[in-house]
């Protein structure tokens, strides 16, 4: 398949990854090569095959609906790049 550089640019934005023009050009070229590899899958007849999302076919285990963790927000928030009181700080969103 042909993948346009515009499509790669859109995808980078969708993934929220800023890229310079040079980086985008290199990435576009490499992704095109990788899709040549991936496109082999298109030729495979998979009619009637059940998709396998996970190696364990069994149902997910359920757990009791009760609190098991203690409040450690201070420990976790110590890792934040910017915080104030008990809040994570981000640039202003609402005017």
């Amino acid at each position, binding site marked *: 398949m042909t993948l346009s550089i515009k*499509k*790669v640019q859109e*995808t*980078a*934005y*969708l*993934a*929220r*990854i*800023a*890229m310079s023009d040079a*980086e985008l050009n290199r*990435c576009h070229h*490499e*992704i095109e*090569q*990788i*899709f*040549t*590899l*991936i*496109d*082999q*899958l*298109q030729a*495979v007849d*998979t009619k009637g*095959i*059940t*998709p*396998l*999302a*996970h*190696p*364990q076919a069994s149902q*997910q*285990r359920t*757990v009791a609906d009760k609190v098991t963790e203690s409040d*450690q927000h201070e*420990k*976790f*928030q*110590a*890792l*934040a*790049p*910017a915080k104030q009181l008990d809040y*994570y700080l*981000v*640039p*202003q*969103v609402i005017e």
Partner: protein
Amino acid sequence: MHFKSLTELKLALHKKEVSSHELVSHYLKRIERFNPQLNAFITVTGESALQEAQKADTLRARDPENAPPLLGLPMAHKDLFCTDGVKTSCASKMLDNFIAPYDATVVTKCRDTGLITLGKTNMDEFAMGSSNENSFYGPVLNPWNTDYVPGGSSGGSAAAVAAGLVPAATGTDTGGSIRQPAALCGLTGLKPTYGRVSRYGMVAFASSLDQGGPFAKSAEDVALLLNAMAGFDERDSTSLNVPVEDYTQHLNRSIAGLKIGLPKEYFSHVSGPMQKTLEEALKVLEKLGATLVEISLPHADLAIPTYYVLAPAECSSNLSRYDGVRYGYRCENPRDLNDLYLRSRGEGFGTEVKRRILIGTYVLSAGYYDAYYLQAQKTRQLIKQDFDEAFKKVDAIASPTTPTPAFKIGEKVSDPVTMYQCDIYTLALNLAGLPGLSMPAGFINGLPVGLQLMGHYMQESKLLNIAHQYQCHSDWHQQHPTAME
């Protein structure tokens, strides 16, 4: 002392020929001497290791009968296992400042068995790579020849054990990241059945494929380590609630009568010295009474394209958590929230990680989901069914671990497709969730070659039995790089 196996060191501690403090001090000196050259460690936790060693010696002196099984033995963790209070970087600029606030279950279990952590090992960023050249902290070099890669993504762990900087280490294997570096560094490395080892606290790359496991010199050592690492964990929703057996129990069993399958699709690619080396190894298994049977895995050629749709898709989802808000790297002076996300992720991730996130985002996006993601899930089913059929006929499957021995640093770094081909023999196993190990099977031009053994679900014990019997009749696993003496 530093090239002794974990089993030998365990005995030496038990016989009081050496103390844990002496052992840990010795390995720390080795790390100080050789790590500047190899770049195998990102973080060395020398002070806490010496304190723990002192405690281990006291405990052993006080109550030797009740000492935990691996008390006082040194090891290292791949830097994607969370370690409470210690940097856990995943070899990424994104997590260069991340001090994990809790321990991974694997870390806790290793500590409970008495193992002492000497540090955190280098790796490909977020475990994405086959050469350990994708690290924010620079490439790891192969101790057998420092012009060559150690393999990836757990290259730091493999290089550290091969160079005698630690006798054991953990790794993770999403598409071959334990087995491939084990092969290229002359070690025994095991990827357990998906769900056998807890993923709690293991930084996620592709959640339906990731599995932690051990590196060591021998199958006997790996069995000891798997005893420590394996087990059900309530905190991992995909953990298998199956009792843990003693993986050392069947090591000495005869392998006479076992049927070992050789997939024709794998061996048809192998020629020259690689073919000769593997044939010699297989002859040893045959002499021990195993029967070699040609088998077919008809969809083997679909493993690479299937993997490079599914792994990036899962990675794009898992790595969306790195947003520069709660932890990790944040760009300078963001204009607004969108700019914060865009630049934090653009500046924080390396080239290979960004490439995989983009591929994953693309194959999951509207209009492409069915053609790529869903189709890859169906081909994954075909690959799994191949193994199901094969294991009706054989007890285990043998194959090369890698197409070639280690390649030169920089040789494939600019060509991702060629790099991805390095995983040709290892990826299928992860897609099916099966266990596999790589063991040393010889050398080509002074570089180690690995033989891969694959098993059916929860058949780790059988693989370790075959590998141990092979190692009782070969000495490749006892070789060490003379430049690291």
